[in-house]
């Protein structure tokens, strides 16, 4: 078995390389829902140099495997990328994922930031999730930390806390061992 290549921080200078026009618009703005939130550090300060990527099913619960995830050409590819702004906010224009194989619907998320030495993974569950193995393994407070909140305007709000009392839940997978 080949030995794995370690990660390194995305650093401070990714903004001219990784973001691209329309990177956070899995659906044209105004046609889908808005998923948004603020990334905070351990002092409760917003993180203006983070980058999030999401991977998700479409509304019917199908995870698209179609090329074009950078350009899209009007195709829903189920992947997007959003850097945070000066106030630490990210946003995506997308659809709410449907249930895949009966599981609770979620957005799969990767987090990068200056100061973060390796990527982090998490999930953002839709409000009022059905029974789910991962959520069932968490206490009530930690469950709430993985579920988006419905805002009055219909958008989904999910803040990320990299550290602190309210730290988000970050995941590791069997393939990482």
């Amino acid at each position: 078995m080949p030995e794995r290549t370690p990660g390194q921080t995305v650093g401070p200078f990714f903004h001219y390389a990784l973001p691209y026009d329309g990177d956070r618009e899995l659906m044209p703005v105004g046609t889908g829902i808005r998923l948004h939130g603020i990334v905070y550090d351990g002092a409760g300060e917003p993180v203006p140099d983070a980058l999030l990527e999401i991977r998700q099913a479409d509304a019917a619960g199908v995870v698209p495997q179609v090329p074009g995830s950078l350009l899209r050409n009007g195709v829903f590819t189920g992947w997007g990328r959003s850097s945070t702004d000066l106030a630490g906010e990210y946003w995506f224009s997308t659809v709410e994922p449907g249930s895949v194989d009966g599981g609770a619907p979620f957005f799969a998320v990767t987090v990068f930031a200056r100061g973060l030495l390796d990527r982090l993974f998490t999930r953002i569950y839709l409000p009022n999730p059905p029974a789910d193995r991962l959520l069932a393994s968490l206490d009530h407070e930690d469950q709430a930390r993985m579920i988006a909140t419905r805002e009055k305007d219909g958008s989904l709000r999910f803040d990320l806390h990299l550290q602190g009392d309210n730290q988000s839940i970050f995941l590791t997978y069997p393939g990482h061992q």
Partner: protein
Amino acid sequence: MNETAAPLPTQAQISAEIAAAPSGRSEPALGFAPYRSSLLRFPTKDLRQADPEGAELLAPVFGQHDVDPLEADLTIQAGGEPLGERILLTGRVLDGDGRPVRHQLVEIWQANASGRYIHQRDQHPAPIDPNFTGVGRCLTDADGNYSFTTIKPGPYPWQNHRNAWRPAHVHFSLFGTDFTQRLVTQMYFPGDQLFALDPIYQSITDPAARERLVATYEHDLSQHEWLLGYRWDIVLTGSHATPLEGEDHA
């Protein structure tokens, strides 16, 4: 970003902290105090074990729509030849079971030969090269190979501590076949005198593991009167597919 007014630590202080760190970590320690920016940005609670499901099982798909083959040559993106040592960077992207990651996106970004990024936050008083953006993309081929023509980046100073210099490096962004294999890392050049001093490189405290971030100079990749060749293979984490299933995914 919360820059404190306290005097910057010296290299000797940072080096002492690096030397005192627990050894043997083959992944970067998320909280690594010698890299000061990490202090408030790493989770202190344990990561939770999850079985991948749904969207986690499938990486995003990129294709010929997305990437112009010319984006793999960082020396032809502007009107003229960039300054510096022209180099070839090539290698294979493999998953944790040794299978090639085929037709998948590779993104790179880097400083120019003088150690300057085209980024408004880079205030290092070294010249910007009007003929070099330092951004490239390509898709791996059917054997998982990637290849970029670029310029060897220069080392550059940063604010972590006094007289802090990053070893020359190229940032790499990689996808596998599973979403959970996502990797962003940095590739370094052999023999760099700054390795021992750099808290980002040294955040991987197993020497063999961090040396996997260093490319090798390979003379057969160099081209007569044209460029110098470096090879760097990348191994992602394991995927959920068994080896047999993986062979069927042509």
